[in-house]
């Protein structure tokens, strides 16, 4: 995963993604998904680039699609992307205390969902389909079942320790 300063995007990578997905407007969502995998988010410049390169698209259309779907983020995400499920089953079994524990532990700045050091970012998702294990949290690809506010602290402490503390 790469985090780059806003000015230095490797548009070669974007070209490659467009080529792999097929540079057609019907593949826009797949292209954006792969761009986000590469950059952790959708930089405005990259969206503009895609919007001017592919026939039948405009930067505005790309921006429209990017802001429509919950999966896309216009802000950089953390090295560890935490998804906290707040689907019905998780909600009924206490996903809010889990969410609050994450927020309390990571101390995000006002209005931000990413820690200042870029290590963690947090988002809520509406259902991960693991309702039998509610409440569920996912960090990158790993699913953590039956979370509690205490368990959150243990999991996050482990990651912080792995990263050499902070």
């Amino acid at each position, binding site marked *: 995963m790469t985090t780059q300063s806003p000015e230095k995007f490797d548009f070669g990578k974007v070209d490659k993604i467009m080529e792999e997905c097929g540079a057609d407007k019907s593949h826009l*969502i*797949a292209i954006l998904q792969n761009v986000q995998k590469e950059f952790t988010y959708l930089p405005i410049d990259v969206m503009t680039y895609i919007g001017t390169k592919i026939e039948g698209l405009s930067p505005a259309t790309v921006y429209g699609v990017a802001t*429509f779907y919950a999966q896309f983020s216009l802000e950089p995400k953390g090295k560890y992307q935490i998804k906290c499920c707040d689907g*019905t089953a998780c909600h009924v079994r206490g996903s809010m205390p889990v969410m609050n524990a994450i927020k309390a532990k990571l101390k995000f700045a006002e209005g931000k969902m990413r820690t200042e050091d870029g290590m963690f970012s947090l988002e809520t998702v509406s259902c991960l389909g693991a309702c039998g294990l509610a409440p569920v949290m996912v960090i990158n690809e790993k699913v953590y079942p039956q979370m509690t506010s205490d368990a959150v602290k243990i999991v996050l402490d482990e990651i912080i320790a792995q990263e050499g503390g902070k």
Partner: protein
Amino acid sequence: MNIDIKKEQDKAQELIKAQGFRVLVCSGTGCMANGSAEIIKKFAELGANVSTLSDYDKLTVVPTGCHGFCEQGVLVVLPDQHTTYVKVKLADVEEIFNSHIVGGKPVERLLYTDPKTNEHVQKNDDINFYAKQTRTALANCGKINAESLDEAISVGAYEALYNILNENNPDAVIQEVLDSGLKGRGGAGFPTGLKWKFTAANKGGKSYVVCNGDEGDPGAFMDRSVMEGDPHKLLEGMAIAAFSIGADEGYIYVRAEYPLAIKRLRKAIAAAEERHYLGKNIMGTDFSFTLHIKEGAGAFVCGEESALIASIEGERGMPRPKPPFPANKGLFGRPTLINNVETLANIPVIMRKGAKWFASMGTESAKGTKTFALTGEVNNTGLIEVPMGTTLREIIFDIGGGIRGGKKFKAVQIGGPSGGCLTEEHLDLPMDYESLAKAGAMVGSGGLVVMAEDTCMVEVARFFMNFTKNESCGKCVPCREGTKNMLKILEKIVKGKGELKDLEVLEDLANTVKDGSLCGLGKTAPNPVLSTLKYFKDEYIAHIVDKKCPAGVCTALKTIKIKEDLCKGCTKCARTCPVGAIEGEVKKVHTINQAKCIKCEACLKGCPFHAIVQE
């Protein structure tokens, strides 16, 4: 045809026999989270090093799809020994191996314990959770290796497609689907056969089959289980549909939140194409069917068929007015058949066992079986499949094993954010489209979230309204603005700032949103509010008039207090409080500064003398 399916089945069954001692380990999303990958590895290691396994020459560990009993994961099944082990941890593997697999003696402590009788149950079919189920769509989930085409073929995959291609009569297939009485399992409940007939009427040019795997209802995961556990059944269902309506290309639209389902589907498509069960000239006939996977990007509204089509085309997933229906003008402007995952998974079974068999299950107006995702405050959470018309009581109390922790049943929310909340008085209602609609709920995709006495219904209504407000695509003003304003009112009420006249406005808004929206999302978004207003009005009144939350959930209406007679002044609570709201000296009664208290209940949970209570 260049394939003889009977021979293929024999070959596949031989392969399974050659596996020797089979150990099935659930590898659905749920059990994977509980560590099934390590358990599989350990079994394989132990199996490789043992020279004698009484009747078998070797041991094979089979990673299967979801068994549905996620609560009890990781599930390990020894099929030939009719034994199911539950809550298996890595540390238990050696004991199962030595005691049961080598020694022939079951490990009692890892068997399922019936919560009612407290007795161990060894056989899968004797576990209450499974005993009352009838599995059609989910029949093979948990019984076969989800990533093996041969295992799928050994239990009948592609047999129906083979017979259909042999007979070469598409209209007869559509008639069979019509006769079965199968209705769309995604929510709307439209007769599947009719949809096929309408699309087939436009035969001639290019047309498409689309599978709707955008299972957006929070609390529903049956489609995920089919895609993860028995992907070939879905692929076969799509191929049969394509043959009947004359399509040669198809799309499976899957939520991006289901990475494992996407992975297994891709693998299944590649394997089926390689052996000519899909792709060009299927089984050596003229029929070709190419399948693509499209990953969704997180929008609930894309479960609506016209929005889903827009999303496949790479646009914002916004619904459009119908007609024209997708059957006439769908994907890329061509006739398109859209069916849900569960609907399509029923097709191969119907074709194999016959429409009559399928129609013999269920009720007069709702045939066959339906899967339900049973979650929330119930003992056995998981995925179940029962004949249509089964009552809520059987589902929640027999299969679900009743409410957790001995709590009292309060309500069950059916059909996701579009559904409604039903109460005690509806427990004997048969689960079919009409009875539920009459009671103000819907079958929907089949999510059942059970709520106990400590769930606040107003808060639940707020939760769903928050969901639909976020997911409204914004096209229709009544939905976009109406859901926002309804949410505002509900937030006001749970904060204890509601007024009685808010309830009237709420109801008025609900009806406007219902009448003034184009698609199912808006039309059904007010359901949770309307049904809770109907059945739990007293809770709304308690919040508004008495400024109390009867379930003790709404933070703004809670007060945390220290009981003077019980407090020993140990100072533990003062040290635990994250905001420093508790004051007091050692060995003297402590007090909570209500202005500072954030009602997190950390003090309450930690007090060794139970001196802290919530009022």
